[in-house]
Structure formats: C-alpha cells, structure tokens
C-alpha cells in the first residue's frame, strides 16, 4: 500500500465547482487514470480518499490536498510520478497537481493537522474602507462575531484566529487585495466571516488560498513536509 498526499491548484472557471463536486471528480479521475485504489470494506465499498479543509465555492487555490491509498500489490514499483502525470492529464481544466509526498506510518488527517491558511482576499470596496477596517482589526483586543452552528447562535471571539493581516501592493482586477493568515483550529475562520466581522458591508470579490500551514513547535510546514512525508522532488514547480 502506498499512501500519497497530493497538492493541487484550482483556478479559472472550475473555481465554481464545490468541494463536494471536486471530491467526485477526483474519484472518477483516479479511475480513468487507472490508479489502483484501496477500497473500504463493507456493504458499499468506497475508494480510500481523504479530503482536506473545504474550499469555499468560487475560491481559487494553490494548495488543495488529498490523501489517497494506492494498492501496489500487483505492481511493487508503481511509479508515483507517472501516476501524477496521468492524473494531471485527466483532471478538468483548472486543476493541476503541483506537489506530492509519499507518507509513511500513521499520519494524522489533513483536517486535524493543518493549523492555519494564508488567503489572498480581493475585496469590492475601496482603499479607504479597507484601511479603516484593517485599523479596527489590528487595534481591537477581541473581535466578537455571532455565527450559526447546528441551528444555534454561537458567540465567538475570532481575534485569536487572526494570525496576521496586511494589504498587498498588487491589485487583482483593480481590486484591493488583503493577505490574511487565519487559524483553522479548533474551527476554521472563513475569510467571508472575517471580512464581515467588523465591517458588515465588506464583501469579497475573489478568494485565493495561497498556503496551508502545519505548525509543529517552532516550525511552519507545508502538509507535504510533515513528519513521515517524503517529498517527490521532481514534481516541484510543475505548472
């Protein structure tokens, strides 16, 4: 059995496909690419695929992760790079594998492991609004939002989840872009919630998840580089 952790980008028209849609796309693409999957036991066997943190529909990303388990019993020397090349060929336009690691031993799931995400948030509002919003975020000692969870209203202070936030110089389609690192534990802070937290009128034009980060002590790692992961170097830089 080989446990692969694959990182891919999502951009262009396909950004409007939901996280659930993309899960199904992966499943089919693995079949089309002839990747021998390990299936779950039981009444309704499913291929063993684990998906990372959900990406809001409409967002782009450079760093979406999935964990898959491949059955190499028939082919001991299964070539991981060939597998990835074949997947890249069959994935929809806009989704591209840009990194892969072979995982050894028992690896905690992506959802448990990732501690924060870095987002580029292009907003619809002008510079002045963004500046005053940034100012409020940075000077407040707590930012309380009310959100609905399982039908109940829950009050949360999201300030601890705001690891960093700054305005970028480069604009996107003429829009101001804010870069923010937002925590994901115990529960992800969504960029849209973050925007509206102190300025209800602030809306996102486009989101792009730039990085997912695993904090291990003082180290900040890519999920492809956590303990037990062996990076397949040649794939780095693949477009």
């Amino acid at each position, binding site marked *: 059995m080989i446990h692969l952790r694959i990182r891919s980008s999502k951009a262009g028209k*396909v950004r409007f*496909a939901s996280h659930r849609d993309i899960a199904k*796309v992966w499943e089919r693409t*693995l079949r*089309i690419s002839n990747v021998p999957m390990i299936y779950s036991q039981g009444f309704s*066997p499913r291929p063993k695929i684990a998906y990372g943190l959900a990406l809001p529909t*409409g967002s782009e990303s450079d760093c979406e992760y999935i964990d898959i388990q491949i059955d190499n019993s028939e082919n001991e020397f299964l070539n991981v790079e060939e597998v990835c090349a074949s997947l890249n060929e069959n994935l929809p336009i806009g989704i591209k594998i840009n990194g892969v690691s072979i995982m050894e031993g028992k690896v905690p799931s992506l959802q448990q492991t990732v501690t924060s995400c870095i987002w580029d948030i292009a907003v619809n509002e002008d510079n002045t609004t963004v500046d005053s919003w940034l100012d409020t975020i940075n000077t407040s000692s707590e930012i309380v939002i009310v959100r609905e969870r399982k039908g109940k209203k829950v009050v949360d202070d999201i300030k601890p989840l705001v690891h960093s936030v700054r305005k970028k110089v480069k604009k996107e389609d003429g829009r101001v872009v804010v870069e923010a690192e937002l925590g994901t534990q115990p529960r992800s802070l969504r960029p849209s919630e973050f925007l509206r937290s102190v300025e209800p009128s602030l809306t996102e034009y486009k989101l792009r998840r730039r990085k997912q980060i695993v904090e291990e002590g003082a180290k900040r790692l890519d999920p492809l580089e956590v303990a037990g992961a062996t990076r397949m170097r040649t794939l780095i830089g693949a477009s």
Partner: protein
Amino acid sequence: MTSLWSQIEELLLHVEKPARYIGLERGAQHPPHDAQNVAWLLTYPDVYEVGFPNQGLQILYEIINEMPIGEAERAYAPWVDLEQVLREKQIPLFSVDTHRPAHEFDVIAFNLSSELVYTNVLNCIDLAGIPLRSHERSKNDPLVAAGGHCTYNPEPLAAFVDFFVLGDGEEVVSELTSAIHLWKTSKDETKTRNDLLALLSEIEGVYVPALYSSTLDANGNQVLNPIDESTPNLIEKRTIVDLEDWPYPKNQLVPITEVVHDRLNVEVFRGCTRGCRFCQAGMITRPVHERSLDQVRTMVTSGIKRTGYDQVALTSLSTADFSHIEKAVAAVGDDPMSCGQTSISLPSLRVDAFTVGIAATIQGGKRSGLTFAPEAGTWRMRQVINKLITEEDLYGAVESAFSQGWRRVKLYFLIGLPTETDEDTLGIAELAKNCVAIGKQHTKNASVTVSVGGFVPKPFTPFQWFGQNTTEELQRKVNLLKDATSSMRGVQLKWHDPKATVIEGVLSRGDRALSDLLEEVWKSGGTFQEWSEHFNIDRWLDAMAKLDLSVEWYAYRHRERSDPLPWDHLDAGLYKDFLWQEWRDALEEVGLEDCRWTPCYDCGACTGYGLDHVVASTSPPVGGSQGTWQNLEKGSDAPQLLTIRKKKEVEAKV
C-alpha cells in the same frame, strides 16, 4: 464570436450552484469558431442538472462537431436567480462550452421532452435577445429549431419555432447543416430568410410551420394547409435504418457537478413494439432496432474507460426485451476496468423474474431500490392499455427482489385511463398491499412506494381520441388511494399534481391558438412549470379565460374519428386506421401481441418505409406472460362506455 465569461464570472458568486454554468465537463468540446461554419446551440429548456444527461442532445453534439462545416455547443435554461441578474445586466443566454452569446449561433435548437417546458423555450428565445415570434425575425437572427418527442404535436409552439424535426436526428442534422452551410456561403443577397426556410422544408422530416395556414372546421377543429403548392402536405418522421451505424455518444460527457442519471448510458435498442396503448414513445419510435452485442460491449468498455463511471445503464424502452440482455449484463461485470466495482442499472425494467435475478447478481452493494411499472391496478385495466402483465408476474418479480436483499420497491401507475372504474383505481392499493406482504416474508422493513400519475393522452397513440379525466376526477382518485393506503403499513403513496396533468393535457393535443396562451403565461412569469414550486395553475386558467380558450375543448372532450387532429399533417409512420382499430380494441379489452415475434399486423411503421425490425433473436424472452405465451384472453365486458359528457356536466367545468 465573443466570450461573455468575464461578465458572467462576477455573477456566479451570487447564484445557487454556479457549477451549472461553467462547462468543463469531460468530453466537452470547444470548437474553434469559423464564420463560414454552421454553428448550432443545442439547448435544453430546463435547468442544467436535468438537461445535461439528455442523450439526444449529446448525440447531436458529437455528430455536428465531427462535421468539418459544423460546430455545436450546449446551453441550458439558467435558473431563476441567474436569469434575474442576466436580465439586469443585459447579458444574453450563453453556451456553457465557450460562453458565447446565443444570438451569435446560426441555429438555436431545443430539445422538447415534455409540454411543461414550453414556456421555458419562449424564455430562452427571449434571453437570447432575438424576436420571440418566427415572423418577427430577420435574416441575421439565428434559426430557432426544435426536436424531441413533443414535436409530434408542435402546434402550440408553431409561432415561435422556425422549423421542427420529426424522429431520429442522427441523419437529418447533417443534411440540415449542409443545407444551411450552402445557403450561408452562397453570396446571393436577394435570398431571404423565408427562402432558407422553404429550402429546409424540402428535407424529409423537417416541418416549417410558417409554410402552412390554419383554418377551423365547422366544429372548431384546426385544419392546416400548405400556403404554397410546392410545400409537402404530409411531413414524415425520420427513422434511422440501423442503430449499429450510429454508435453515439462515443464520448459521453461526464459532468463536474451533480446531475440526474449520472452514469454511463448505453442505448441497447431503439423502438418498442410491446404496444402499450398509452405510450407515445413506443408508438413513434417503431420499429425495433437493436445494437449487436459486440457493439454494446465495445461501448460499455470504452465508455467505462473514458468516463470513470462506476454505474452503467443499458437503456431502451424495455431493456429486458434486448435479445442479448444476459450477455450484455455480464459484459459490464466482466469489464477489466470495473474491478468488480461497477454496478448496472436497467431502467424500464419489466416485471420479469429473469431480469431481477440478473440485476441482483450485478447490482452488488448498491441496492437503492427497484422500480417496476405495472401501470394499472387490475388485469382488466391492463388489457385495455395492452400492458399484459399478470398479477403473478408482478408478485414473482417482487418476491425475487425482496429475496435478493432489496428492501424497497417502487411501483408506477397511471390513473385516469380510459374505462377506469374505482375498482381499477383501488386495485392499485391492493397490489401494493400484496407486494408489502410478500416483502415482509423477507425483511420486516419491506416497503413499497406507489407512484401515481394522471394519464395524459398523446398524439399518435390509440388514446389520442380519449377525453382525459378532469382535475377533480383525478384528485378524487388520488383521494381514494390516499384513504385506501393510509392504514396500509409499508405502503407510501406519491402522486403527480393533477393540476399540472391537466395543463400537460391541454398542450399535448393543442393547436396554434395556444401560442398566445404560452406567451401570456410566460409574460406573467410562468417559467420552470415542471417544478412544483413554480407551477401555478391559476396562471394558466387566467390566461385561458382571457384568451377565451377552454380546457374542456382541449383536454376533456372525447374526439370523434371524423375530427381533424392538429397533427394530421404529420406522419409518425402509423396508419390512422391502425390507431383507431387499437382504440376500439382497447375499449373492448382486446389485446395485441408484440410483432417482433409474431406476424406483422401492419401498423405502418415498417411497411410504409421499407424498414424492418433489427432484432437478433427471433424468439421472445422466456418467462412471464410477457414471454412466449401472451395472454390475450378478453377479461370481461367493458364496464363503462365512453360517451360525450352531458352538457350540464360540461358547463359546470367551464
């Protein structure tokens, strides 16, 4: 052509299910545009997830794109939320493949598979930014075309559609493309749009409504006549001779987002001669043409490999009748790509123990539910409709299903069939009860879902003369069943809204006067009428009252043999005498056997066209009364005669 993507993109953040509008499906084509080519926009007038799986549209999409002079893209009706913003921003209907505006195509072709989508056709034409009515369009506007089963009575849409195509589209679509190409590339500036339409009307199977004028006979029935002598009096449907020549779709599209019937579909045969008298599909698609087993195998193997689907449907109007059904099913299971994980579904499953056995071995772990369609609750009623399934057949099938591990069986029935009595209606509940009892012997969770729909008489069927049940009558029958099943444990009753049924009935056999009705309903906001949350009968009844149109006239009245029918100028291959004889036989409960395996009774479908059945097996499938020994015995005397309803009754309804 220009892409509207950058404008559409911004809107998609604010609509439901934006993946409906992005294209990118596996197999989607992005034909490079050449102004000399004939560009088709194949449009399904309902929402993406409903229209996407349509096989007819996908077949034409491939055939056109294979032509050097053709290019085809797809469009679907935008859901109401996107439509609203498209209108606000004045963005037209667009293709999902390259997001080009609809009005830049040469032909906008609609698939018509049910009557309630008609107002969506109007909406799509309007969203395309071209004039709604045919006669208002100019030389530079796209042609508006339509195909699909509803074109066997296209009259309600006659004012909006430039040409209709009757029957199989595989061949005619290339002929149309060539004709339009020739016209487009000839530099003759004197030629008008009408010249082009006249040219197209010369192609067999093509009906151009503008070339016919309508008058009313003394009773108010519409009669059509060609305006010009050169126009054909009768338009004959197209039938492909051999399905084997058309192994399409070769590259079935695989969606990115969730759609209905999300699986690999392989059509194993076209046409059906079981002869169910209510079934329009079985009448208009005759004769039977099967694919060879080899081709089915190839299509399954290459389809699984290319699509990654883990579910395969072998489709047809009655798949258990396929000569090679057993081997075809085995071929799916044996496919090397499927790794034992591929399930097979056989839609249109007849109650035939053999089939259930096969399904049980193949369907593996995924046992969601099995559906059978006995259609009527008593043997007498099934003789009237010529669906000659005995109760024992049904119980046998249900027994196998529950014994093979299924827990839920769904049964389809029609109510409001000709000569139906309350005994027949209540027979539905009785059958369901007995099926649950059979299931309980195998699992205590056994359940039977009974789904009833009101019967709508369709053109080119023996029941085309029948006055359909009123909304009130259908509702009364639903209530009878509700009462009868409320105390039956394990029986769930579902029913189609009788109010929608009556509107389907009005449109099904309507004439050109209904163009105004469609426009009125559409203008009042009546789109997506197939969706119960959008359907509102008052919209229709108010418009009918305003236009002085009567439901009684269109839907409830029994027609006489001498009454001209609005589709008399069209030919589905069936002799009218045959249909009339079948209608009389229905009322006398006389059955008719399947002509695949018995001598020809000359319905017209083969003889009129020099066609023949293409069937590998000369003997019918074994087992069940649908097999060799069809029970054609007469059940009893018809309990009620069809008479024109009394005037008082009629007035009460109007």
